[in-house]
């Protein structure tokens, strides 16, 4: 069933298909049943006859060479240019390398044995993978307050926007312009609210988001992939922490993830992952409850 109007159907029906080449069906059948070779390209010009031309050229060169060197019927025809090229090249003489034996130093000489320079040892430190390098660059941009480039995400969002009906697209653009015009703090609140609403309406995406966070925390707990860059979703650049806050966070993180050197069993690892997940959820709720700003000791709550 088509939902196009009469005029739209009339416009679409104008896309007529030109007739096929006569005999195409027969060529296809004959190609597969062995009668004629498959013509892969139906374009004209030199491409179509390229094989024939190359074969003819090779034949001409071969016959000229044969005639020049007298291979055919021992004909003593020699064409200087081709003969010189076509004659078998003289074998190269074997290159013999003379190795001189080291002369023994005479007794009593003051010559000291030459110490060979030590071979350069490859740096055992593994070079960072491209993903780690990308994370480092991203963290550096966030730390300096520069906007983070997200070309793939931007392209995907632009494609989604183009795919919306005109009225919905205009509404989305108007909403985006309204949020962009807000002051920075209110903009963070609005963006966090939009994100929370979106995740609430899309449970599958919320589950994938949670799984991503869980995978990151599990990787951090295993100690195999050190975290570089922010691991928590932020609505903007991170605010600087005091040294005491940084030490407290590190101690809390190590206590949760077992980064103090103890080996974890799989059950313990799963339990820690669950604790981290609960902690992240509570922390996100706390931050949203504080107006999207991290709670600071001694600072008043953000007013709404």
């Amino acid at each position: 069933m088509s939902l196009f109007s009469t005029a739209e159907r009339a416009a679409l029906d104008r896309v007529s298909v030109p007739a096929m080449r006569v005999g195409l069906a027969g060529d296809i059948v004959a190609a597969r049943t062995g009668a004629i070779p498959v013509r892969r390209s139906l374009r004209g010009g030199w491409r179509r006859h390229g094989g024939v031309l190359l074969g003819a050229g090779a034949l001409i060169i071969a016959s000229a060479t044969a005639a020049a060197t007298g291979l055919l019927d021992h004909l003593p025809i020699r064409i200087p240019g081709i003969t010189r090229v076509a004659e078998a090249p003289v074998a190269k003489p074997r290159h013999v390398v003379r190795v001189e034996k080291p002369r023994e130093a005479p007794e009593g000489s003051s010559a000291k044995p030459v110490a060979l320079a030590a071979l350069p040892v490859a740096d055992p430190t593994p070079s960072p993978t491209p993903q780690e390098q990308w994370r480092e660059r991203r963290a550096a941009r966030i730390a300096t307050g520069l906007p983070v480039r997200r070309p793939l995400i931007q392209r995907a969002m632009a494609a989604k926007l183009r795919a919306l009906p005109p009225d919905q697209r205009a509404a989305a653009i108007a909403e985006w312009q309204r949020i962009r015009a807000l002051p920075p703090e209110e903009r963070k609140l609005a963006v966090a609210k939009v994100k929370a609403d979106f995740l609430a309406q899309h449970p599958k995406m919320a589950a994938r988001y949670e799984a991503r966070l869980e995978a990151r925390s599990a990787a951090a707990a295993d100690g195999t992939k050190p975290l570089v860059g922010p691991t928590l979703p932020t609505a903007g650049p991170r605010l600087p922490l005091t040294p005491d806050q940084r030490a407290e966070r590190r101690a809390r993180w190590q206590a949760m993830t077992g980064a103090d050197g103890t080996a974890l069993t799989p059950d313990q690892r799963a339990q820690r992952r669950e604790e981290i997940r609960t902690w992240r959820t509570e922390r996100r709720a706390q931050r949203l409850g504080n107006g999207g700003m991290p709670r600071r000791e001694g600072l008043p709550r953000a007013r709404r």
Partner: protein
Amino acid sequence: MLMRQTMPARETVAPRDSGSSDDAVMARIAGRDALAFSRVVEAQLGLLHRVAYRMLGDAAEAEDVAQEALLRLWASAERWRPEQAGIAAWLTRVAVNLCLDRLRRRRFSSDAEVPERADDTPGADARMADEQLRAAALAALGDLTERHRAAIVLTYYEELPNAAAAEVLEMKLKAFESLLLRARGAMRERLAARGLTTLAGDAA
């Protein structure tokens, strides 16, 4: 009056009850029966050519794609699984995938040429106007993304049911219906942008 250049769906997509006949035909082709293969070629070549032309916009490439799809059918006849999708659906899926592969390497290039030379013969103005409209419609189809275009070609031009078209594109039915809804909206916009219709769907 231009009629849609399509065949009824029943003649293009093998219905479920002819699955056994498709299996028998493929068994004969696997035994290198040229007659069976020629019948399949005659029955399906038109469909493949139409789909490929509307996907790619180039007649020569459309013939290449149709030929390649049929050659792949011959090559993979021995690996045909009984009771799977019919021959027409299989060929359509292969042709659409070949078109999508080619489109990923290049943009949609329409070979519709608009005549620019003045022609004094009677009816030349009308013919030129028709050619311009045809070129504009083809260009509007080419403005769509590849998957939107595939959805429109399969459902509107080839009149495949949504389930069959979803199977061709290897999508779930719900996902395909969502894709089709967006494709129709995009097609409507492109037709209006090219001046063929208005945003309300009326003739421009």
